[in-house]
């Protein structure tokens, strides 16, 4: 297990800054969530971690070694693996073949896969609960099975750090919980972009909230996921309660003020916005609509 540290990471598309000065510290073995609305820069930040994007400023460090300057591409790929959103094209790969791609950084390009590799591939499939499914065509799996195969491919890299970009998208609730429980049980450091704030509250040790390309809050889910912050960043009203099973924070959302709570009316949103001083288009429009109502 390794420490993953992003130190002042900035990414630009041409001259337009996409994210600026993002610092995230993931202690070894922790599950860290990256939250924020669409377009807030979560995926961009994650891409710098698995080297799909080069940061224009700052550095990504695994155990204090820069993944761009101090590690080769293959060395970095033996430490950091990803389950990304991008679908790719399966061209009729079997499950085994997809998972075996995870062994790529462990070999020279022309080397053959050995007995160790086959054992690692089988072990990864076993971990995700897909024993014996190796010869099935990847394209014929269900969405949940596909996501597990992609997780197995990442595990076949034998990484110390696992990056997940919205791993629960399009999955049913049982599969969502199953997948995150599975990841939670692995001995790796996890940095995951999540859309579902309640899943984040249930599974993350710490969360970072991004808004307009910057980290605006960090801490434990209990500290961070306040109705005020959610109003500011997501532009929705939230009522916070306690999950009866886990004792963790649980949020209930609405686009209109909730009758059972007084602390997150439109005025509060306006106040927070002034205090925060961030550029926001959607929330502002929404709060104006709300104010016009009788």
């Amino acid at each position, binding site marked *: 297990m390794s420490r993953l540290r992003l130190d002042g990471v900035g990414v630009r*598309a*041409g001259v337009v800054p996409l994210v600026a000065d993002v610092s995230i510290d993931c202690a070894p073995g922790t*599950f860290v969530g990256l939250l924020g609305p669409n377009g807030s820069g979560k995926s961009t930040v994650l891409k710098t971690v*698995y*080297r*799909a994007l080069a940061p224009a400023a700052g550095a990504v460090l695994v155990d204090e070694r820069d993944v761009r300057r101090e590690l*080769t*591409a*293959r*060395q*970095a*790929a*033996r430490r*950091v*693996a*990803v389950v*990304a959103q*991008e679908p*790719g*094209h*399966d*061209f*009729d*790969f*079997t499950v085994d*073949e997809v998972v*075996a*791609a*995870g062994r*790529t*950084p462990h*070999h020279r*390009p*022309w080397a053959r896969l050995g007995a160790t590799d086959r054992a690692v591939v089988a072990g990864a499939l076993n971990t995700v*609960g*897909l*024993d*014996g*499914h*190796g*010869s*099935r*065509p990847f394209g*014929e799996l269900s969405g949940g*099975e596909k996501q597990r195969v992609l997780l197995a491919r990442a595990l076949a890299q034998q990484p110390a750090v696992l*990056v997940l970009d919205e791993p629960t998208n399009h999955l049913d*609730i*049982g*599969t969502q*919980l*199953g997948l995150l*429980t*599975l990841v*939670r*049980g692995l001995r790796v450091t996890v940095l995951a972009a999540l859309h579902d704030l309640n899943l984040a509250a*249930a*599974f993350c040790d710490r969360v970072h909230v991004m808004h307009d390309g910057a980290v605006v809050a960090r801490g434990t889910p209990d500290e961070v996921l306040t109705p005020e912050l959610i109003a500011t960043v997501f532009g929705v009203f939230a009522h916070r309660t306690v*999950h009866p*099973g*886990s004792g963790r924070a649980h949020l209930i959302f609405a686009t209109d003020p909730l009758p059972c709570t007084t602390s997150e009316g439109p005025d509060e949103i306006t106040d927070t916005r002034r205090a925060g001083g961030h550029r926001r288009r959607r929330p502002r429009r929404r709060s104006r609509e709300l104010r016009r109502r009788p």
Partner: protein
Amino acid sequence: MPDTTVLTPVRAHTTTVAAPRAGRRRPPFGVVLAGLIVATPAVLVVAIGTGAVWVPPARVWSVVVDHLGGAPGGDALADPIVWQVRAPRVLMAYVVGAALAVAGAVLQAVVRNPLADPYVLGVSAGAGLAAVAVLTIGGLAGAGLAATVGVSGAAFAGALVTLALVLALGRRQGRLDPQRLLLAGVALSYLFQAGTTYLQLRVSTNQLAAVLFWLLGTVAGADWAELGLPAALVVACVAWLMGQGRQLNALVLGDDVASSLGVAVHRVRVHLLLVASLLTAVVIGIAGGVGFVGLIAPHSVRLLVGADHRRLLPAAALLGGVFLVLADLLGRVVAQPLELPLGVVTAAAGVPFFLVLLRRAGRGVA
């Protein structure tokens, strides 16, 4: 489905999935490869023996063995037919087929599109325009041009110029973008085809036959001198591409994933494009625009051995070679004394072959 009570993250994960279903039935890779390796010399010998004069396989074999052993001329009657006329032609068909199949498989992976073929980046259209220009431009200038560079040289140059244009147009933010490459290639193809059509309309009827034959591909009239350099280039390119199987697998899974697997996506893609297109340009130079092999051979092989490029590329090379030798053989014999262009035979014989494979694969899935 997962146990729905797993709300506490620390609890052990309990999952039950549907019992493993049997995967698609594929013949073992070793059997397919061995079959293709055994088929290769057999098909070559029969193809060399067949023609206006039938030479039995045993006699073909002994002539070839004599030449390889350094003591040619033992069979004065069969020797010129087998060694001087037919062997270079059949070998050229093999080289062309193998090259196109490998180039097609690589380009399908690089642009991540199963409809891609070796000509998808427009190299055949550019080569065609250059070759037809040399074939049809009359007068002294045309004759001089044809004599100095030849149709092959012109086609090769046309292919390289097109490739350079496509690479220049296919960039976005300094990186090659697969979608943009495809669009640039298709757009340039239409432009060059328009030019080729214009030239065709202007030529006389007897010139038109030569032009059509070239555009549809032919290995007629091949000789040893013409075969040497292209064959060496093809062998070198194919060997290099076969070493890139794992990079190709990673690229197919997506650029982001490939990056996370330690593949230098941009650099690898450029190298693969350059080598696959060089391969295509060489082949177009010697045989014209042989269609269909580069599209169908990779897909046929995928149905047989799967999509792993470390298996796919060698098998595609063997199958593409054998297929084109058979196509050339058919083109020589079905309409004797007339010869059919390769492109006509590859389509007419290849489509049924492919459809049979597709149907069989479809049954295996259910």
